[in-house]
């Protein structure tokens, strides 16, 4: 793969919730193609196993005790939020006016 099309770059950028400027478009067309060409090598590996390794641990799941305990305080959490009003974090409206 030489380079991706602009449409393909815009597609992967949208998946990652990113904008791609016109200035960077050419860079990404080549660079993403280089990485995806490398990744394609995975497909040619001759492998016998069907077993997957998701994480190198043998730990079993554990459940927390069902007890009331101190959690993070709302006031502390709000310290890093960008737009707070009383007890809420403000976001732009997500529904149409009509």
């Amino acid at each position: 793969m030489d380079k991706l099309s602009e449409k393909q770059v815009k597609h992967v950028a949208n998946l990652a919730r990113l904008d791609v400027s016109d200035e960077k478009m050419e860079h990404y067309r080549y660079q993403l193609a280089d990485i995806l060409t490398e990744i394609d090598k995975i497909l040619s590996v001759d492998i016998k196993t069907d077993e997957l390794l998701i994480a190198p641990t043998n730990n079993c799941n554990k459940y927390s005790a069902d007890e009331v305990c101190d959690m993070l305080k709302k006031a502390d959490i709000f310290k890093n939020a960008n737009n707070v009003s009383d007890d809420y974090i403000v976001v732009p409206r997500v529904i149409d006016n009509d």
Partner: protein
Amino acid sequence: MTDYLSKSVLEINSLLKEKKIKPIDLVNEAFMKIEQNSYNAFITLNKEEAIKEAIELENIEIDNPLFGLPIAIKDNICTKDLKTTCASHMLENFVPIYDATVIKKIKECHMIIIGKTNMDEFAMGSTGETSYFPLAKNPWNSKKVPGGSSSGSAACVSARLCSLALGSDTGGSIRQPSSFCGLVGLKPTYGRVSRYGLIAFASSLDQIGPITNNVMDNALLLKAISGSDVNDLTSSDSEVTHFTRLIGEDVKGMKIAVPNYYMSDVIDLEVRDKVREVMKLLQEKGCIVEMIDIPYLEYAIPLYQTIALGEASSNLARFDGIKFGHITDSYDSIDQLYKKSRSEGFGDEVKRRIMIGSYVLSGDNANIYFKKALKVRHAIKDAMVSVFDKYDLIIGPTNTNVAYDFNVKSDDALKSFYDDLLTIPVNMAGLPGLSLPIGFNKSHLPIGMHIIGNYFKEDVIYKLASFVEKELDLNMDPRGGDLC
């Protein structure tokens, strides 16, 4: 100026116990050195708090070897009330409201955090050059990169601004800069150290580990940060042994494997020659050293690109500009807020990686690429672990080369991955691996040797590392001993 911070942990501990020095002397020395030349190793300094803590420690009994020692922390490990930026514009003003588990443990040992260290943005890079902040420099030659992603942690320990630091390693980010800066750096077994409070890059690969000037210090710091944690279900219940217990023991009879792949002509000749010298030394001292083949190692890079970037795209989806992190100035919709905030907040390397990660996890690609990668990962893990049926350890070079100039191939999207060619397989399998300085090339730049052990056998790694360290007896101080 004093130079206590170039001494070993045990030497400093003796001076503290004999009351020849106080913790405040160590803290003052660290900040004086940092003012003279910081090598851009730090993003945030913790001066006021560190001085306060050092004075408070004067009234507390010394109860462990790390008591009162200054330590530097990679800036992707959360420190309560101390800015944690991940070297990103995205988190430039982020102040955590809790401590990572390793930080709690550091504080329980009464160590003193002197600052948060520079790094590649979100730990994505192998040179330190993707940092949003002025780039950390290699104390051996400031025109050379210190390696990455734990660039500042390596630079500050190498320059003796601090004798201990924590880094994190997803594909080589502790071992690679340790090799470039002439240090001892360990990526512990996956699960040995809690990841709670480590800002995630690739959760199934990330581990926090120690970066130090010598093997003994490394083992002491690993002990302090190890152990299971209810806040990280991938942390292990395995016994936390005294990692120093085998240090100083004879290595005669140890069986050591060297993968042919690790000594191929892709690796710089001077680096290979230096590793061969150590192989010869070990044979002379009664070790059995044999070349072996390990299948699938050649797929480490595409494997990493699929798994690490897939996980990264998911982990970094949380940065939306709303709950924390950079938010754009103007937007018309929530979708625009996400996209503009993320596009302004992340640097190029991060954007490239999360785009690829999103792609390999999207739709049918999850089956085509990601599932196949998990199968290859299983196979590479089996292949590496089976080596330990016959051998105690695997050795080879840590890196393909020594530290190189800034801006080399900065436009090459594959370069940072290829720098980690020899370190990635260890993360894939979850094994422990250490980089040990074994000498210099003709330009007097450090060369690192990789020592890989079986699961939870960090003590065996330290056994061999301490033996080689003692035999070679190198001066790994980049200041050439001028200040010693």
